[in-house]
């Protein structure tokens, strides 16, 4: 599997090197993006949803066909209040429709459709409820999970203090260490994600990358990221790879091989009604579609995407 992936990456890299980047638009015909269209759509995303920024990435990984300061898009510290698995279980339990089909677009339901969300939010982010103790295959690092009750804790320097601010009602003596802070009654401990969008030259589409952090702001093991991916996609369309613009770490990525086809299908709907979608809205549509893969990661994108030119 690994070898296959390596060979494939090598092939893809070679093709990317020898082919010129797309400059002519084929958005309406194929659902793909040219490089200038990616920049245009990215600028529009940053303007409308300012939690997104352009970034330069590591200079050694700079792609010459993209502007130096606009190599990829990123939004950081995005809350992920609950696990995608738990959302799906609820759907099953409630017999809910997963596909929102009123517009005939066949999109999966995304944020906020499930019933008992508010109660759940309070329970899920707590570390005790996470099944992180599994040691087979997943090497858990005890100090990441300072709330845990593992015996391992004794040997390893842990930070049993820092995630829990419950007893810091310390209006008393100023100590060198911590300030006065009111009782922690509803500070949310939750996973967060850095979500980035790169341009995939081979598939001529954007590509989404996820970097996760646990409740104590420590990097999330890639394996645990799968808990936040719709089970229809985990380990199939989502893989763990090196980031094209960052040096360190392994990042989860939604594989772009089907992106163009899906985008084409989505834009065909307004087109059959005589409305021509504007290419600068590409990323809004794209992110709406990606939300079906990562339903609980609450990044910003304009909810009411108006595909047409009337907006």
């Amino acid at each position, binding site marked *: 599997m690994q070898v296959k992936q390596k060979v494939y990456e090598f092939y893809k890299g070679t093709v990317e090197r020898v082919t010129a980047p797309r400059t002519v638009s084929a958005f309406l015909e194929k659902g793909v993006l040219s490089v200038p269209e990616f920049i245009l759509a990215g600028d529009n995303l940053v303007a409308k*949803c300012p939690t997104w920024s352009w970034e330069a990435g590591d200079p050694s990984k700079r792609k010459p066909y993209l502007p130096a300061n606009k190599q990829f898009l990123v939004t950081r510290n995005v809350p992920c209040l609950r696990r995608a698995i738990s959302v799906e279980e609820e759907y099953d339990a409630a017999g809910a429709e997963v596909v929102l089909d009123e517009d005939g677009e066949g999109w999966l339901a995304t944020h906020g459709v499930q019933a008992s969300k508010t109660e759940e939010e309070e329970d899920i982010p707590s570390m005790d409820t996470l099944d992180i103790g599994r040691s087979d295959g997943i090497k858990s690092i005890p100090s990441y999970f300072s709330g845990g009750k593992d015996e391992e804790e004794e040997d390893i320097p842990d930070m049993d203090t820092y995630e829990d601010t419950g007893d810091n009602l310390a209006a008393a003596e100023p100590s*060198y*260490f911590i300030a006065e802070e*009111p009782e922690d009654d*509803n500070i949310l401990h939750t996973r967060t994600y850095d979500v980035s969008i790169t341009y995939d030259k081979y598939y001529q589409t954007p590509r989404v990358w996820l*970097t996760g952090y646990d409740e104590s702001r420590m990097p999330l093991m890639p394996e645990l990221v799968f808990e936040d991916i719709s089970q229809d996609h985990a380990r199939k369309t989502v893989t763990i790879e090196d980031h094209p613009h960052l040096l360190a*770490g392994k990042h989860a990525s939604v594989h772009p091989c089907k992106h163009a086809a899906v985008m084409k299908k989505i834009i065909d709907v307004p087109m059959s009604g005589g409305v021509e979608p504007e290419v600068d809205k590409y990323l809004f549509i794209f992110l709406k579609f990606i939300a079906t893969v990562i339903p609980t990661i609450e990044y910003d994108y304009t909810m009411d995407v108006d595909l047409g030119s009337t907006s």
Partner: protein
Amino acid sequence: MAGAGAMGFPRELMVQRIQSLVEEGFWDALRRHKLDVLGTDDSPIPITGYYTPRQRRPMASFFNLRSGSLVPPSHSSVGDRNNCPVPGTLINTNNMRGFENLDREQLLKAEAKKILHDIVSGKVEEDPSVLLRFLVTSFADLKNWKVYYNVAFPSLVFNSRITLLSLQPASKVLTKEEAASMYTSLQKWRTSSETTVIPFFLVSISSDSSASIRQLKEWKACQGNYQKLLFGFYDHGCRSDCPGWVLRNYVAFLSIRWKIEKAQIFCYREYKGNPDLEQSLIGEASFPSPYGWDNPEFLPDAIGWEGVKPGKGTKEMKPKEIDLQSMNPASQDEEKQ
């Protein structure tokens, strides 16, 4: 929010602590830097952290360190609204013993002294981000692909009482007209690449309800020309009952540099990248001048080691630990076999 009702005014100022979020890229960059450049040199290194106002409900924002943090900010992205660069210091020791033996109390005081110096000298007015100065101590155990570290957000211990006289959502304090004008001005401030990364600012509201936002260095110029003057700052916090951490050093600045004893504060927070006047807070604080601070030899007390509870000694301080095994080429080869 629960708890707010129980605490009446006036009350002692409490603040919401700030949390660091260190990307693996930062440690990877340090690893490379140590191997390629530093060797066994363990002298302090200037680094850059990234601060933002609270951006998303319902959580607070974090203080970010990334791969670019070892590079001076002028070389990384400038004027990015989601990344206010803040100067910091990294002390990376060569071994565990050196790491454990660091005198964290003195290190913190040394940073506090720098902050005080920047307040007194007026540097804060030119570059307000120095009020957010931070400190990282680490031991990068490269043989075992591990890093042990602690982060501190030094905060001057004001030796007179800071009292909070009121604190309410901005949308409740301002009139509709004032809120509308303020919203527009804040958006303008946040859109301009020149001002968007400046985390401390002045808001003046004139008698015709129009609000304008200015830099701290314009304080003298805008005196007298307003109905209300608010001392604004980017607030990372999400609580409705207390401001964020950085207000403490801001108050110290207002008191020591401008001799202010009572001020209206504005805790600026955002929702989806736009001003969130429902969760931004306006309050009033009083803080009589502290004593002894005009002595040039004065060494202020400081607090701010992340995650340490009161009463624990520095020597006992537990480090955070991060595993960099995923960056180890050897372990990746193993996986493949």
